[in-house]
């Protein structure tokens, strides 16, 4: 590996931000269609953080979050994780189920709804990536885990740590009326796939 994540230039971050933007845009319209309401989206923030900073960005290691994990298949190997805090998760499932209260515990139905939301959002993200890079990309079935942020974050952190000591975070905010949903994507290409991704984007050779 001849480069480090810190060296990545702004152009690369801009490209990722743009992919995040298009992907989240597609995701927002898919979600809007599903719940038949208007959804607005902010321009995503792309940040490179240390493991500690990433946990802090999510609100601390012990805060409860929902993580939805996918395997990336096709021309790139790796993983994608979509992560939301528990209140965003409850807002989304309530929207999807057409419920008013957001206080109840998440049941089996909510869990599968969350996996489906993760599927739509990550699927949109990956199809944007695929369209922009010309690479053939697919995602596996989702796996959901609701637990401490630190514990969930350890999974992408471990994967990143094989090559880097930093983690790449893409933050997206969706709003429906007064409801604010903050979602975080982690794109985790396996070593080797990172160069492939960068060269297909024309920002690394």
């Amino acid at each position, binding site marked *: *590996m001849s480069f480090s994540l810190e060296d990545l230039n702004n152009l690369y971050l801009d490209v990722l931000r743009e992919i995040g933007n298009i992907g989240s845009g597609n995701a927002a319209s898919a979600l809007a269609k599903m719940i038949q309401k208007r959804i607005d989206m902010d321009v995503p923030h792309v940040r490179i953080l240390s*493991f*500690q900073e990433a*946990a802090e960005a999510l609100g*601390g*290691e*012990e805060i*409860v979050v929902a*993580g939805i*994990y996918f*395997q990336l298949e096709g021309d790139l190997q790796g993983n994608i994780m979509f992560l939301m805090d528990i209140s965003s998760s409850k807002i989304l499932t309530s929207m999807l189920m057409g419920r008013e209260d957001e206080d109840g515990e998440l049941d089996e139905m909510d869990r599968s709804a969350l996996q489906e939301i993760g599927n739509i959002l990550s699927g949109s993200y990956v199809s944007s990536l695929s369209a922009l890079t010309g690479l053939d990309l697919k995602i*596996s*079935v989702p*796996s959901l*885990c609701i*637990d*401490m*942020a*630190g*514990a*969930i*974050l*350890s*999974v992408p*952190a*471990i*994967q990143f*740590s*094989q*090559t*880097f*000591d930093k983690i790449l975070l893409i933050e997206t905010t969706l709003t429906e009326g007064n409801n604010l949903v903050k979602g975080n994507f982690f794109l985790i290409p396996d070593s080797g796939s990172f160069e492939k991704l960068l060269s297909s984007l024309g920002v690394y050779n």
Partner: protein
Amino acid sequence: MNQIVKVGMADLKVVKESDVLTTLGLGSCVGIALYDKVKRVAGLAHIMLPSSLQIKNNQNQAKFADTGIALLIEEMIKEGASAARLTAKIAGGSQMFSFGNNGSDLMKIGYRNSIATKEILTMYKIPILAEDTGGNYGRTIEFYATSRDLLVKTIGYGVKTI
């Protein structure tokens, strides 16, 4: 004076007497708590990967079970501990996500971290007094330098002292 010292991911710390070591939200990582009963020196490492030999990016010794345990022992000896008196308690190494049979080796990283930790502790002849490893949930741990107690807190799986 009771001081709570936080150990981050791929990090290690050593304390003496009445202090408490903690690491928050252990997932697939393993928390390794070592103790010298006579000198009351306590050390805690939060490792992410089993072996520094398999990875190119291996500058941070605290990231791996092999180099992390070696460094922790070294730091504890500096504080007056004796390698021959050290005992261990370990926690973590869970599998947060599951993909059935299609899971890659990385999905079993928690299990591999626990196995490597135990092998390396055995290599240093450090007895493992207790462990709380595996499962599919996160753990926050607190290690008390006065009592050698390791408190394990979870979300939905209770609290216990090992």
